């Protein structure tokens, strides 16, 4: 707990200093994108790591956040400091509505039904031309006077810090433990008084809120929002980040986000081989570090090697 907190604080200090050390705009841009993914990965981690259910619909919240900010900015001309928080809140409201339906389900059903929601939203964005401008997307989103990359950098850093603070508090709170109880064993959780639905909902809405913030930022930074923000490709990237870094830890998704962002860019060197290699690297990481990079560090002390588990988790939960 303290180790994790101190790691986060060190990382924060490092991140604060970064723009003074780096002047290359391209690197700064990558840093902004990495932090953007840090927020997303952190938010997904709340659901995957702490609710223990695998959401494939996280782009629903990224997307609603992005569209909210884009619409508020292009139609009402509102600046970033208003649109981004509103984007978070709207996404949280969506999170609540979607959670109310999806959190009744578990396992593969949850996985697919969340994906279904993201796809429905994508199709709505693609076809509700009057509002979303359909596949043409919303272009020319205002940058609220932020011209320098460095300013964008500090905005996204603040969002990342907020996301991590909220996660940290949640994870180490009684509410967070309740969510973990639900993840680990629904029956036990209920019998000690945890409302599985409510506990999961808290984490889910919190995750949606953060993803919405990230989406709002994205809209302003990229200045263009189209239906692709709902697409599975985004989702795959975030999943890879969370799992590669190590789900259920706070530092893991950060590490994952930074590494994957840099890796994808670095692999531009190999041209056409880029994604082929990327796929291979993802597989290699799963095979050699099955608990993710952070899991690798954390699990070293637990050492549970090749035990036969008494049973598979899914069947465990019977009386």
């Amino acid at each position, binding site marked *: 707990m303290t180790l994790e907190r101190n790691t986060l604080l060190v990382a924060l200090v490092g991140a604060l200093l970064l723009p003074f050390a780096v002047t290359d705009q391209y690197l700064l841009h990558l840093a902004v994108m990495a932090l953007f993914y840090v927020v997303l990965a952190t938010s997904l981690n709340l659901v995957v790591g702490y609710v223990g259910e695998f959401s494939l619909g996280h782009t629903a919240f990224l997307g609603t956040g992005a569209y909210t900010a884009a619409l508020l900015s292009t139609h009402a001309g509102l600046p970033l400091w208003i649109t981004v928080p509103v984007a978070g809140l709207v996404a949280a409201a969506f999170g609540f509505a979607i959670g109310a339906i999806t959190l009744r389900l578990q396992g593969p059903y949850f996985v697919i039904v969340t994906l279904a929601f993201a796809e429905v939203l994508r*199709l709505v964005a693609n076809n509700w031309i009057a509002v979303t401008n359909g596949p043409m997307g919303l272009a020319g989103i205002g940058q609220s006077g932020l011209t320098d990359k460095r300013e964008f950098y500090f905005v996204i850093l603040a969002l990342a810090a907020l996301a991590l603070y909220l996660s940290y508090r949640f994870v180490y709170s009684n509410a967070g433990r309740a969510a973990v109880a639900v993840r680990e064993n629904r029956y036990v959780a209920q019998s000690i008084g945890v409302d599985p639905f409510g506990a999961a909902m808290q984490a889910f809405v919190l995750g949606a809120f953060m993803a919405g913030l990230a989406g709002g930022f994205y809209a302003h930074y990229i200045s263009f929002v189209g239906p692709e923000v709902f697409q599975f490709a985004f989702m795959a990237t975030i999943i890879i980040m969370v799992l590669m870094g190590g789900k259920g830890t706070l530092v893991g998704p950060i590490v994952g986000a930074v590494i994957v962002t840099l890796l994808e860019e670095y692999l531009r060197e190999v041209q056409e081989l880029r994604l082929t290699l990327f796929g291979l690297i993802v597989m290699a990481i799963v095979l050699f570090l099955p608990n993710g990079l952070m899991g690798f560090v954390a699990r070293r002390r637990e050492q549970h090697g090749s035990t036969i588990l008494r049973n598979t988790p899914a069947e465990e939960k019977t009386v």
Partner: protein
Amino acid sequence: MDLFLQYLANGLVIGAFYALSALGLTLIFGLMRVVNFAHGEFYMLGGVLGWFVTAHLGLNFFLGLALVAATMATLGWLVDRFLIERVRGQGEEPGILLTIGLSIFLVNATLLVVGPAPMKVAGAFAEGPVFIGPIIVTKLRLLAVAVGAAAILAAHLLIRRTRLGRAMRATFQDPMAASLAGIRTKHVYAATFALGCTLAALSGMLLASVYSAQASIGGLVSLKSFVVVILGGMGSFAGAVAGGLLLGIAEAMWGGYVATGMVDVIGFVLVILILLFRPQGIFSARAERA
């Protein structure tokens, strides 16, 4: 009325295609519980290999189909033994990440080798319309439906009636108990994966002869197949057929009477609605008690 019948026919054909292309996933995801994101890519490889063996090796369609099946069975076996096997028993996530990685690799490696252009797979015979009363279908479609039905029936019988099928179910429900009963669980896993892979590829090649093969088709196929499997209930072939037909007909009706622009939405809406009212899909029973 004729219009309705034609829509219904379209829906049935497409539904059969959906069921067919979800078949491999019913095994690997529905039964084996590996959330297989590479399913669409296995399907795609079926089409691309189909193009290769017919256009380049000059094999006839059915010979080609057999060769593709054999190749993909081998591939599936290897993938299971060397990849999936190593993360088995560690929960859902490593498998998800692994198959996402595999799917990224397979698409892009295929793109590198054959390029992004669509490829035409010569069908078993020349394409042509078939008239059934006021309804038009085509010969290749009928063939695909027939082969698909046969494959589904065979897979169903395999799971329900054969020794291997029972070994599969036992292994996936409790691998430890299965090995204590004398079942070689590793082989069962690998065989199931190989079979799932083969079925995906078969449907890929069959349908590529109706449409065309293409390296980046996988994502869409995976998505629809997941919908079908979930609609029908995990691991049930009857469910997959029902899910496929339901999806196909719903899409045809929605496309016919409302708008084609948003047909894809109907599948997802169906999934949401059905899971709301029947959280285990249409065709599954719960074997769990609290």
